[in-house]
């Protein structure tokens, strides 16, 4: 119950102002198609340099929470999901808006997001300290396998191809070794002076998440997107609350599914929303109404994608393994403020950890309140042309990556990685495992080196890294995640082939 002592810190003028800015800004950014929550949070990191660690994390956490919820605005009013997490929301949300129930759909969306989100953050509050204490028992070999687990789980679950996902993770791990090594001080893979200090993680995050989006917008050319914003009529909030009370089953399924999926590293809000929608449909006596503007579909999808946010931070704050790509960016934000996740965070920086987590809880309520008022404005911003969006994101990416260390080298690294990632994405590689490799690479390497030193003085490398119950368990999870993903990939292909034959 330690978190209660730090509730007051959220309400200091600066912290609360940042929470408001993050929430309102996140709602608007989330509603803008082409700006994913991950990219929005990555672009915001440079703005936290001037802030204290707690303040920076409050801003990033609020943006994370509300970008996911804000994505529902364009999903409902424009049929364009603001983020992949809102794909399932378009199915019933837009149909409701077309039937003249836009306001009701928005109200249900923000209310169910808040309920799911609060449950998710409560899970974060109660699970994190327990797991953080458990993580104290981890030695270098376990931490090495945990880092590898983080990369493989994201690599296999986040990618359409297991091999390409793992290969992306390897590229990230290799990129993390660029620069001088910590023990011998030797140069590794430095073929340009800009790389002397290694790859700056923030510049890399901005490049890998923002630049491919910019190029994707360029690839559309001078496309006129005549997305018509559906006019939002007035609707009493009481009616939406009553509707929500009637839809307990969809709410429960969405919240539970989202929370469980959030805890699994690598499975993001997109999967949470779609699985919750599917499960809610299966358990509903009115399943034929799904897809025609049925409130239950919207409630399940939105409660799930916000319930996922809190739990996705559990493995991050305890074991340094981000639960989602956006959580990986948040890890970058923690590291630049000199804060390392795990028991260190709760033992040495409880004020930072608990104020941040509490701010996410209050942020869910604020997101709901402002969401209901900002929705109309956010939907208008969603119609900003792609040309303007691409140019703005490019400018922000250049200024943001330069401001990390006032170095042009970081800007060059950002641009090079971004362009490379765009082309890699076109060939089935994904950014998330690459980023995870880059972030977890130094953790894996330092623990591998420490472990090798211990192993040399004891039984040898193989018994040290491959022996012991915890090592074997972690290795088993790594192998199981790879095998499961291979099975799923083969099954998906079999279905596709069958469909092709039927067609």
């Amino acid at each position, binding site marked *: 119950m330690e978190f209660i002592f730090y509730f007051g810190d959220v309400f200091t003028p600066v912290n609360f102002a940042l929470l408001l800015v993050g929430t309102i800004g996140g709602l608007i950014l989330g509603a803008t198609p082409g700006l994913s929550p991950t990219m929005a949070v990555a672009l915001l990191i440079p703005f936290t340099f001037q802030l204290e660690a707690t303040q920076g994390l409050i801003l990033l956490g609020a943006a994370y929470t509300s970008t996911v919820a804000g994505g529902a605005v364009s999903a409902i009013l424009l049929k364009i999901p603001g983020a992949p997490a809102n794909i399932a929301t378009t199915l019933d949300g837009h149909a409701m808006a077309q039937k003249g129930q836009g306001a009701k759909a928005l109200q249900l969306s923000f209310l169910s997001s808040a309920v799911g989100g609060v449950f998710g953050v409560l899970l974060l509050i109660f699970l994190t300290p327990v797991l953080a204490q458990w993580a104290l028992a981890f030695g270098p070999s376990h931490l090495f396998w945990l880092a590898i687990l983080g990369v493989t789980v994201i690599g296999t679950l986040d990618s359409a191809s297991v091999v390409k996902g793992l290969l992306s993770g390897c590229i990230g791990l290799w990129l993390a070794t660029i620069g001088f090594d910590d023990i011998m001080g030797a140069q590794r893979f430095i073929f340009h002076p800009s790389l002397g200090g290694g790859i700056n993680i923030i510049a890399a995050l901005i490049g890998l998440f923002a630049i491919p989006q*910019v190029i994707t917008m360029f690839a559309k050319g001078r496309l006129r997107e005549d997305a018509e914003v559906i006019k939002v009529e007035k609707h009493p909030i009481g009616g939406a609350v009553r509707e929500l009370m009637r839809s307990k089953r969809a709410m429960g399924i969405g919240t539970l599914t989202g929370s469980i999926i959030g805890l699994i590293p690598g499975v993001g809000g997109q999967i949470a929303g779609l699985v919750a929608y599917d499960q809610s449909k299966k358990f509903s006596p009115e399943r034929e109404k799904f897809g025609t503007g049925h409130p239950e579909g919207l409630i399940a999808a939105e409660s799930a994608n916000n319930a996922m946010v809190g739990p996705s931070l559990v493995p991050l704050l305890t074991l340094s393994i981000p639960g989602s790509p956006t959580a990986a960016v948040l890890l970058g934000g923690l590291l630049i403020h000199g804060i390392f996740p795990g028991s260190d965070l709760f033992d040495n920086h409880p004020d930072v950890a608990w104020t941040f987590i509490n701010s996410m809880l209050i942020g869910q309520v604020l997101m709901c309140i402002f969401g209901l008022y900002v929705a109309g404005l956010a939907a208008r911003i969603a119609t900003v042309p792609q*040309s303007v969006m691409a140019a703005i994101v490019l400018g922000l990416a*250049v200024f943001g990556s330069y401001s990390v260390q006032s170095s042009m080298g970081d800007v060059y690294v950002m641009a090079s990685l971004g362009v490379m990632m765009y082309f890699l994405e*076109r*060939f089935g590689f994904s950014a998330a495992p690459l980023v995870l490799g880059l972030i977890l690479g130094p953790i894996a390497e330092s623990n591998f080196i420490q472990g090798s030193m211990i192993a040399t003085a004891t039984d040898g490398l193989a018994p040290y890294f491959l022996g012991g119950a915890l090592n074997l368990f972690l290795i088993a999870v790594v192998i199981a995640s790879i095998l499961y993903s291979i099975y799923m990939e083969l099954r998906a292909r079999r279905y596709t082939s069958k469909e092709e034959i039927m067609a």
Partner: protein
Amino acid sequence: MSDLNLPRVQHIIGSGLVAAVGVWVTYVSYTQQPSEAFLFPRLIATVFVILALWTFFKACMGWTKVGNGITVTQFRNLAPGLIVALVYIFWMAKGLGFYTATAIAFFILLSLYDPAPHTALKSWLKRIIITAGFIAVMYGLFALLLKVFTPREILF
């Protein structure tokens, strides 16, 4: 070249480049000294090169199922923007100063990709106003609020 063959050739080129990087990383990891510094890279490089060569082999055999490659239309669309962006980042930003270079690049990109007609005076005026507004916001955010001193060569 037919549309059917285009992605396959692209996959071969793409995965070939990744495999070439993998081979280079492996070669450097196993040959550079001091060997202790390359212990971890060696571990990664071994997995990297195996996966990269397998991906390349699959691409050559036409077994690659994931990734759509780039169509000629997409490439034609993105090429001017990419060139402007790269010239802006690698030459103009430092040479002309961040704000001047950003203003120029922003305006060119807007003009290239804005669906509004190029013949109407009103749309040009709109682009100039948007560019000026964006630069003012960037100056306010970075120079005044965050106190980031960016390179300033011409004008500011």
